[in-house]
């Protein structure tokens, strides 16, 4: 290693230490100030980091809250397998809020048409689960660098009794003084990784040698192109007449519902090469792989107002 590379490496370690300490502090505040918190875990890279932060914050004890996943039923099988294994390893209790069950019970109605997605259905199912388990805090892995509405969201993000976020009526948040107080029926979304960037997440995964689902690395897959994005061929996502499948070497930059998460062409087969790729990437991760944000300039803001993650 050159001297510059060593200096950069040690700078990065100190930066990650600072971000980790901040996230651990927030995690402990949640445990101390709320009666029934839960950690939202999707098996995606941000929630994997979140889980490690929770492990660290309470070591040598286990973290004092369950893990919750909103399962659309259209998730990548590799990710569900990973989710179950990882949750068992840390010895946490897993609560699954199932979109399929909500559809079967008639509590939500599935979108129809070729562009149908269960992405929006996650919101009512999440809110139902929060009510059912009487959760007063849901810890999520969202980051402010993901999207411009998120850039304005608080670390302790207040939700009214309808689970809604009101961007113009947020609580002031100063110093390290997070206000978790609320009345029954209201809850808080808490984002300990607010100040992390996509690259920070990858550097942390590398440093902590965290396991991540295989679809984050380059693999061969049958895909087709839609709106300039590579979608996986799957029974959940019917192809339109002029769309044709082909085999490609791809990886995923984000992990979500199969119907709205796109792959990117990549040969990055390990964390190091993924980091090199992310460092020179010219497209944001949501722009590259999330069809759900493309609808309008304020797509995320609108979904968040309704109670989305």
């Amino acid at each position, binding site marked *: 290693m050159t001297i510059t590379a060593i200096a950069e490496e040690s700078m990065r370690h100190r930066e990650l230490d600072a971000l980790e300490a901040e996230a651990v502090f927030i995690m402990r505040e949640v445990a101390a100030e709320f009666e029934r918190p839960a950690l939202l875990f999707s098996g995606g890279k941000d929630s994997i980091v979140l889980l490690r932060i929770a492990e660290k914050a309470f*070591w040598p004890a286990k973290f004092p809250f369950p893990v919750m996943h909103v399962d659309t039923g259209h998730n990548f099988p590799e990710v569900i397998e990973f989710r179950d294994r990882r949750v068992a390893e840390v010895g946490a209790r897993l609560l699954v809020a199932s979109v399929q069950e909500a559809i079967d019970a008639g509590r939500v109605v599935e979108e129809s048409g070729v562009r149908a997605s269960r992405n929006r259905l996650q919101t009512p199912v999440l809110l139902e689960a929060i009510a059912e388990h009487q959760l007063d805090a849901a810890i999520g892995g969202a980051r402010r660098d993901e999207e411009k509405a998120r850039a304005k969201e608080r670390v302790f993000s207040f939700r009214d009794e309808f689970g809604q976020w009101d961007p113009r009526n947020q609580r002031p948040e100063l110093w390290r003084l997070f206000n978790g107080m609320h009345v029954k029926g209201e809850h808080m979304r808490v984002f300990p990784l607010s100040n992390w960037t996509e690259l920070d997440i990858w550097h942390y995964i590398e440093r902590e040698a965290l396991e991540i689902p295989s679809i984050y690395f380059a693999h061969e897959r049958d895909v087709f192109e839609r709106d300039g994005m590579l979608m996986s061929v799957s029974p959940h996502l019917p192809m339109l007449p002029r769309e044709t499948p082909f085999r490609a070497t791809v990886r995923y930059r984000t992990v979500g519902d199969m119907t709205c998460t796109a792959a990117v062409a990549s040969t990055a087969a390990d964390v190091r090469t993924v980091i090199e790729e992310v460092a020179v990437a010219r497209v944001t991760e949501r722009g590259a792989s999330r069809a759900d944000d493309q609808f309008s300039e304020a797509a995320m803001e609108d979904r968040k107002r309704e109670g989305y993650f």
Partner: protein
Amino acid sequence: MDLLRFVTAGSVDDGKSTLIGRLLYDTKQVFEDTIVSLRRASEAQGLGEINLALLTDGLRAEREQGITIDVAYRYFATPRRKFIIADSPGHVQYTRNMVTGASNAELALILVDARKGVVEQTRRHSALTALLGIRNVVVCVNKMDLVDSSEARFRKVEGQFRQLADHLGVEHVTVIPMSAVSGENIVHAATTMPWYEGPALLEFLETVEVDDPAQHGALRFPVQYVVRPHTTTHHDYRGYAGTVASGSVHAGQEVLVLPLGVRTRVAGIDRYRESPGCAQAGDAVSIRLEDELDVGRGNMITDAGAPPAVTNRFTADLCWMSDTSKLLPRQQFWIKHTTRRVRCVVESLDDRLNVPDFARETAPAAFELNEIGRVTVRTLEPVFVDPYATSRDTGSFILIDVATRRTVAAGMMREALGEPATA
């Protein structure tokens, strides 16, 4: 410091959003899809070229009205440093947002329009910066292209600001002439101002040394959470989890536990699967103590020789932040100070600061939204007071409305008081 947090302050027309947009754009932090959506939004506003200001205006209402409403956080990194920008709107009605953005910043960028020089807004931003204890200020004298890059004009504005900074006691002031629209002296050195020999803004931000006073203060460790695993391997383990707010702590150190007032020693310090011998300000750890004591959240482990004042009464500077109510004397609240939350009453409003001319009006009847002044607070249970000027983490607090549970004020402690003469 490898992570620099700074706050930006400027009013609607100072070009602040353009400056930040330029900083992100010229350091290649803006992604292609963002540029595409920016171009689309710029065209929708009838603009020929990309409006860099749109990069930072995230909410629908902000884009529609062309103003910044709320604090937005931006991230960028160069090989030398990672930066977190708290982008705060500067208008008088958004004082609470600037206070919020400044509360975690080590440095402030204050924008000044070269044509206008130091104006009331500048005085307001500078006063808030000083009040929030930010010791490093960069004055961005923007729109130099509109004054023919005139050195004489720049020197005049610089002189005005230095006079203001002296008055406020801001320690480190750097003044840089620039043009955010053309990018002069933001990331790249200006070619139109050969008379200016200092660094461009980015170079300055990458190299400025920011002293963190918490690193060399006396030990303050607010207990956040008690870790008790109850497992066979850690059966009798009892660790006090928290983040070192100031100073450092090491195994064997004699400490004082508040409010018990008991002295004991540190038996060990733990962090995930390891037990480092010491920890310093900013580290999130668990401390084990030699004696079995009744210690819980809201207690504080402190330097045995230099503890904070334990008191029920203190004075503070307070910024009122509620838009639905005003602050009246004798009103009751929850106070959150470090990890401690107790009931309190604002005993008296001692004065109110008129920010632009720094005059203080004594005994005001009330504080309205965005007003700042000196108050006396009495708490039901004792709190551990450090002056904000010496310890940001243990000298700051918020007030929470008892009914709505919203955060309604931000406070900075000044002085511990004894009991009132007449009860």
